């Protein structure tokens, strides 16, 4: 909200409070000031000129040739195109060299052969709104040659800059809870409280009215709690005086004509929106009602709107004339010649107004105020203020009838008890209860003694009671902010703190991150929780159950991911454009709606997701050079590092997500941990998904490790093993077998054949080839045999190989003896 410093001066004497002081003090005590800037800085560069004479331009009918005195005894000849320029006027002159808004530099020029030394300015050229029908005529009696800002009375701001007014811009968000601060009167009351200054009186009593029949008003909706209607006669619709136009401009409101300006003035002064209807256009009475489904009306901006029962209408009889609290209807515009007006000042329900304004994209300064729970006592006061202000402007206003005051409302003013001890303990400051009372009185609260000597009964005025203030702690805040939080002494916490519980999951996550980013050379990513529809489709997982956002950031972002792997897969293609290999991991969460918690919340999946994309290995590459084998190795290493356990891998059973290769997916479990969900899954990217993602040329593997399942695996105590005293023997074992026979089975058989002597067993080759025949493979192992009590001999080896040969035979495998 833009606050005009000059406007505040109507309500409080700001002698000794500079615009800079004001901005700083409001920030520290009330609400955040985002900006402080001079109003219409161009007024400091143009000077007051007096038009000495005006003649027709010899060669152009519409141009005038003016001689303008700018105070230096050398009247300037200026060519002016405005129809309203005339001799004896005071005008704003931009002399040669002046720079106007829009970086418009004034130069000496020739217009139709006549020299022109400057420009007589319109309001628009000075950044004062849109008025451009003619030049801006200044009041009489100004000091000719002075900068216009100074001649009209300037105010000094930061850095010694002088301007006609200063704009204090307050962050609207910091005023959310303060409906009373949406007008200059309220801001002035804050300044008065902060500074301990008196607030100037304001007459909010309606002058006596005639005894005509009150205007009929009927309220048929709960969305309107009060509706004041006041017929006003005798207003001459003219241009507002410059000082009013300047105030409105400084407050960010474009001046139009007297009626609109006065209505806006009252809103910006008291914070209460209001509306002036053309009384002659209203035929029946006012009816406030909810719109009917599909009902249409055209708003002031000329747009036809489709409405529904959640919107509220002001009607003339049954005919909508305004969208309540949001915008007037086109038909209710005041005709220039009208003599009868109807003033509406009402209390509308904040949520109704907010929803309508937001749904129709019609947030206005009126709707912004209604949204804040305005003081319901304001409509009567605002009506009086508007009438009194019209009179202040010299309008001969007649009130033919008393105001109609319809609706069912109660004054929210209340009394809250406040214990001095509560203030002292929450703020941690030494303040007597009497001092606290005095501070609250400065803030315009009523203060009376409470039940005991330490208690105060604080009456909260209606302007603060609609939403903001209702409990003791609210008043503690009022005291705190008024004394200033910088006056609160810092204190060290002294309470006993229990030692922190060891957070297993957090420790684990950190170790996994370190291992992957260190040894495994993976890069940690973070990706969006929303799974884009096209990615879900490409990965073949669009039809899985998802938690869905009903109001997504954009279409296609409804799905909340079930796991993290798909998000990472979606980031491979762009990264692969830059480099041949990509290794990414992310530790994050996914949600599964098919598993509901006790309150209907979805099950949370916390997982380490890994993806690895690399060029396909060449024909001579090692059997474990592929992405899937490498990724399996990384997962094994992580589990070994954080849990000192080996994973047992098996073919994945049951349905798999669309991105997992149906024939090449393995799940890893910790055998010792017993039956439970798998700890990890590794797969090759499904070829169909790979094609859709443009990854066909690459060898891509993906994996996840379940954080909670991993955290649940106990770390085995590691007991000391005596160091071997006798050398071991290395033997290579090559076994040829059918494709279906698993490494794990063969390895177990080899281990068993060693009768306790197998110390190490490593698969070093896996071979398939024509010489073996179709459907057969050969696995080769390095084996280390070692005994604790003797040196092994060739005989031991020979016996071991014989046993391996028999065991292999039992499995349908054959020991290859070279």
């Amino acid at each position, binding site marked *: 909200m833009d606050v005009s410093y000059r406007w505040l001066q109507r309500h409080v004497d700001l002698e000794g409070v500079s615009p800079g002081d004001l901005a700083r003090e409001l*920030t*520290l005590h*009330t*609400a*955040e000031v985002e900006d402080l800037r001079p109003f219409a800085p161009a007024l400091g560069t143009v000077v007051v000129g007096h038009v000495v004479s005006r003649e027709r331009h010899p060669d152009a009918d519409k141009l005038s040739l003016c001689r303008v005195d700018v105070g230096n005894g050398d009247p300037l000849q200026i060519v002016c195109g405005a129809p309203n320029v005339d001799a004896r006027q005071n005008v704003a002159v931009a002399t040669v060299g002046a720079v106007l808004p829009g970086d418009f530099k004034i130069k000496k020029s020739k217009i139709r052969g006549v020299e022109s030394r400057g420009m007589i300015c319109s309001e628009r050229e000075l950044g004062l709104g849109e008025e451009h029908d003619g030049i801006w005529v200044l009041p009489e009696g100004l000091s000719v040659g002075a900068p216009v800002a100074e001649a009209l009375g300037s105010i000094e701001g930061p850095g010694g800059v002088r301007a006609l007014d200063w704009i204090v811009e307050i962050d609207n968000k*910091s005023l*959310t*809870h303060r409906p009373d601060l949406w007008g200059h009167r309220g801001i002035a009351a804050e300044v008065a409280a902060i500074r301990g200054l008196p607030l100037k009186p304001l007459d909010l009593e309606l002058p006596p009215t005639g005894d005509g029949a009150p205007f009929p008003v009927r309220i048929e909706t709960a969305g309107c709690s009060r509706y004041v209607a006041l017929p006003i006669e005798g207003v001459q619709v003219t241009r507002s005086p410059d000082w009013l136009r300047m105030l409105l401009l400084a407050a960010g409101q474009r001046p139009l004509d007297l009626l609109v300006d006065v209505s806006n003035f009252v809103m910006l002064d008291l914070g209460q929106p209001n509306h002036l209807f053309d009384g002659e256009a209203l035929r029946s009475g006012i009816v406030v009602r909810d719109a009917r489904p599909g009902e249409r009306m055209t708003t002031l901006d000329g747009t036809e709107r489709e409405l529904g029962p959640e919107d509220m209408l002001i009607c003339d009889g049954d005919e909508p004339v305004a969208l309540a609290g949001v915008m007037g209807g086109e038909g209710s515009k005041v005709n220039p010649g009208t003599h009868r007006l109807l003033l509406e000042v009402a209390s509308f329900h904040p949520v109704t107004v907010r*929803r309508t304004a*937001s749904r129709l994209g019609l947030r206005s300064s009126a709707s912004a105020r209604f949204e804040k729970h305005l003081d319901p006592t304001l409509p009567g006061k605002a009506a009086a203020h508007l009438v009194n202000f019209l009179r202040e402007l010299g309008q001969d206003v007649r009130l033919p009838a008393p105001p109609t005051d319809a609706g069912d409302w109660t004054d929210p003013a209340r009394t809250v008890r406040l214990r001095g001890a509560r203030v002292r*303990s929450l*703020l*941690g400051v030494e303040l007597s209860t009497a001092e606290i009372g005095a501070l609250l009185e400065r803030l315009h609260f009523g203060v009376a003694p409470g039940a005991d000597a330490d208690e105060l009964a604080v009456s909260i005025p209606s302007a603060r009671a609609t939403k903001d203030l209702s*409990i003791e*702690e609210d008043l*503690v*805040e009022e005291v705190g*902010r008024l004394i200033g*939080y910088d006056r*609160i*002494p*810092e*204190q*060290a*916490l002294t*309470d006993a*703190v229990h030692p*922190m519980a060891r957070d297993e999951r*957090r420790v684990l996550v950190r170790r996994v991150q*370190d291992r*992957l*980013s260190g040894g495994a050379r993976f*890069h*940690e*990513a*973070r*990706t*969006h*929780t*929303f799974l884009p529809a096209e990615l879900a489709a490409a990965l073949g997982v669009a039809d899985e159950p998802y*938690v*869905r*956002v*009903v*109001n*997504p*950031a954009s279409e296609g972002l409804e799905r*909340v991911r079930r796991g993290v792997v798909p998000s*990472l897969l979606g*980031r491979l293609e*762009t*990264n692969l454009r*830059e480099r041949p290999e990509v290794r*990414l991991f992310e530790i*994050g*969460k996914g*949600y599964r709606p098919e598993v509901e918690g006790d*309150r209907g*919340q*979805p099950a949370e999946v916390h997982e380490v997701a890994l993806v690895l994309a690399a060029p396909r290995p060449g024909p001579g590459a090692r059997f474990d050079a592929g992405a899937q084998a490498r990724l399996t190795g990384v997962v094994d290493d992580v589990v070994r590092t954080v849990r000192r356990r080996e994973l047992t891998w098996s073919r994945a059973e049951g349905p798999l997500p669309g991105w997992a290769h149906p024939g090449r997916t393995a799940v890893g479990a910790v055998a010792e941990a017993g039956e439970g969900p798998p700890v990890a899954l590794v797969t090759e990217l499904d070829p169909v998904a790979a094609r859709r993602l443009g990854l066909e040329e690459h060898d891509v593997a993906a994996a996840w490790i379940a954080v909670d399942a991993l955290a649940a695996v106990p770390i085995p105590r590691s007991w000391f093993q005596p160091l071997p005293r006798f050398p071991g023997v290395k033997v290579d074992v090559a076994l040829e077998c059918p494709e279906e026979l698993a490494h794990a089975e063969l390895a177990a058989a080899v281990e068993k054949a060693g009768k306790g002597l197998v110390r190490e067993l490593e698969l070093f080759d896996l071979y398939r080839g024509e010489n073996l025949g179709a459907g057969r493979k050969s696995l080769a192992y390095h084996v280390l045999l070692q005994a604790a009590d003797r040196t092994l001999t060739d005989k031991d080896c020979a016996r071991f190989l014989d046993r391996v040969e028999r065991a292999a035979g039992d499995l349908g495998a054959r020991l290859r003896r070279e």
Partner: protein
Amino acid sequence: MNVDLDDHLEEARRRIAEAADEAALRAVERAYVDKGGVVAEMLASIPGLPPEDRKAVGVNANRLKTAIQEALEARRSELADAELEARRGARGFDPTVPGTPQRRGSLHPLTQLQRHVEDVFTSMGYLVLDGPEVELDEYNFQKLNIPADHPAREMQDTFWCDRDQHLVLRTHTSPVQIRAMEQLEPPFRTIVPGRVFRNEELDATHSHTFHQVEGLCVAEGVAVGHLVMTLRTALREVLMKDDLDVRLRPGYFPFVEPGFELDVRCPFCADGCRICKHTTWIEFCGCGMVHPNVLRAGGIDPERFSGFAFGFGLDRLAMMWAAIDDVRHFLEADLRFLEQF
């Protein structure tokens, strides 16, 4: 005979002294010591000698053999020493040739900063908690004193996960305040780093998904001064600036009363810069004394205990810290970005 012996020895010693490598030494060894060599010939000649000479020749031959072997060993040792000495030279060494690359992965910048923040607060006795990202409306709003008609509930701010507005993507980490109160007995101190969601347009400074760190401390007699000292102390560590100053000013959050905005004195300048918008203060976090309704919702008696809470954005802090110009980088998983950290 003796002359012969001396000649042999002299000749052998000369050749040994001249030998520049093992091959030359072996040649000497072969000529004198090995089978068929000089010494062997001498010994072989013994049976043909007069008996009185035999012993002397035998002794001399063995003496010659020993002497030559000693000379060979000495020369071998000399050559080995020379070889070692030669290896200690600087030839072939370029100190500027780079070492073997040790490639590494990287931790996300937000992870790095989050760990730093966690470490600072855990050192001050704070427990790190976690909470769900898909949250019940009750925890995200109701129990945090955000009544049904509060603007924060409107569609443009909150992602709703169902039509009846029962589930939301949490809009802040504050619901974990309630979860903490339900889990822990006061006194306690906790921080909650986590991912949050607001339905905002994406641009360089706004994301619909970002990260916050929530803080909560509940005990008897906790006052505003404790909040200030805690945050000042912690932020000096977090921002690594020992004389960092903070200030409070009024701020509105429904779940605290009184509520504040906490500004930190700009760590990048002394008298105004672009980052602090020339004010020397940077708006850092929202905070305040926990609202009594919130304490009650968490099952804590507000007459006995009080507490303070705070919350700040991790993304903004990271952007400030590493001069990152666009918040969107954080969730793009672009290696060109990630590899920088």
